[in-house]
């Protein structure tokens, strides 16, 4: 590996960019792929290898590819970390944060209401006490980010949902009954969101497993987020 490639790779990882290293296994020639562009390295890879690299990034799985040219190429994936933004430092968020952390997500709980978002209620969790619109603008959800609106309060949930739905976030869920959601759809439509944008909301939130307690709802939500990330296997 060339030193300039390693330095560019480390910089891209620190900036949480979508990065892959492609290595031709015969001779070790490499290229660095950042956000779809070749940024470093001397390897000229065939198009099918670059396509395979993008597919590997989508699947978040490093793999060796046998290319049409008969050579083996290794694609090493360096995706940004998974993130879960929870709007609302509510009871369900208390249950969801540790489950998501165990599943490998960086969890950020967003709530401007000081009493809710206290350290004691969320030990070891990053709590952001900005208003949700401000927080989401700053945190800028990417393709590796899931967003859950859990406050039941339109003043807090709606501005977050508007931003999440217009971001590349791979999952957007909102707590609330069907009736609550119908009202929400009306408000978001008035706010100028398209039907296709609004349809992205998982609501009522969570897979339908009959969840009742906050912990059960958290499990249903985490399962739904996992499904959105990985896709069903069709067994």
């Amino acid at each position, binding site marked *: *590996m*060339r*030193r*300039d490639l*390693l*330095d560019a*790779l*480390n910089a891209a*990882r*620190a900036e949480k960019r979508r990065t892959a290293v492609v*290595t031709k*296994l015969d*001779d*070790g020639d490499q290229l660095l792929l950042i956000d779809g562009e070749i940024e470093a390295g001397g390897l000229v890879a065939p198009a099918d290898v670059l396509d395979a690299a993008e597919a590997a990034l989508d699947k978040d*799985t*490093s*793999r*060796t590819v046998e290319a049409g040219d008969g050579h083996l190429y*290794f694609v*090493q*994936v360096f995706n940004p970390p998974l993130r879960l933004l929870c709007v609302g430092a509510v009871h369900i968020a208390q249950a969801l944060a540790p489950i998501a952390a165990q599943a490998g997500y960086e969890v950020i709980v967003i709530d401007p209401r000081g009493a809710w978002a206290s350290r004691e209620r969320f030990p070891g969790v990053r709590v952001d006490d900005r208003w949700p619109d401000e927080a989401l603008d700053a945190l800028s959800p990417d393709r590796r980010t899931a967003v859950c609106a859990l406050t039941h309060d339109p003043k807090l949930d709606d501005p977050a949902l508007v931003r999440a739905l217009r971001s590349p976030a791979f999952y957007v869920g909102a707590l609330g009954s069907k009736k609550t959601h119908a009202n929400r759809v009306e408000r978001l439509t008035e706010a100028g969101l398209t039907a296709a944008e609004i349809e992205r909301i998982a609501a009522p939130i969570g897979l339908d497993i009959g969840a009742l307690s906050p912990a059960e709802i958290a499990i249903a939500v985490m399962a739904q987020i996992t499904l959105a990330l990985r896709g069903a296997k069709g067994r």
Partner: protein
Amino acid sequence: MTPDDDLLMKAAQWADAGKHVALATVVQTWGSSPRPVGSQLVINEDSDFEGSVSGGCIEGAVVTEALDVMQSGESKLLEFGVSDAMAWEVGLACGGEVKVFVEKLEDR
């Protein structure tokens, strides 16, 4: 992300300190290999290493090969598995097979 827990930052840090460095990466696995594809080991010229490419059964052999790669500058593709002639020495106890790519980190 700090050099202490990040292998590729560790590699850069060692190189900055004037050490020769090699990277070993699991590029393919079959069967029940202990570490997934993409797992890495970084090695310096003093045989210090961080990370893992197996449950510990082949790291010794990989470090030896890495020292050779640091000298020659030529990358190597190593294969380990129970079917390997070297199985008695450095085979994988789990019965899996693994291919490890070893490359030198070139000097600046």
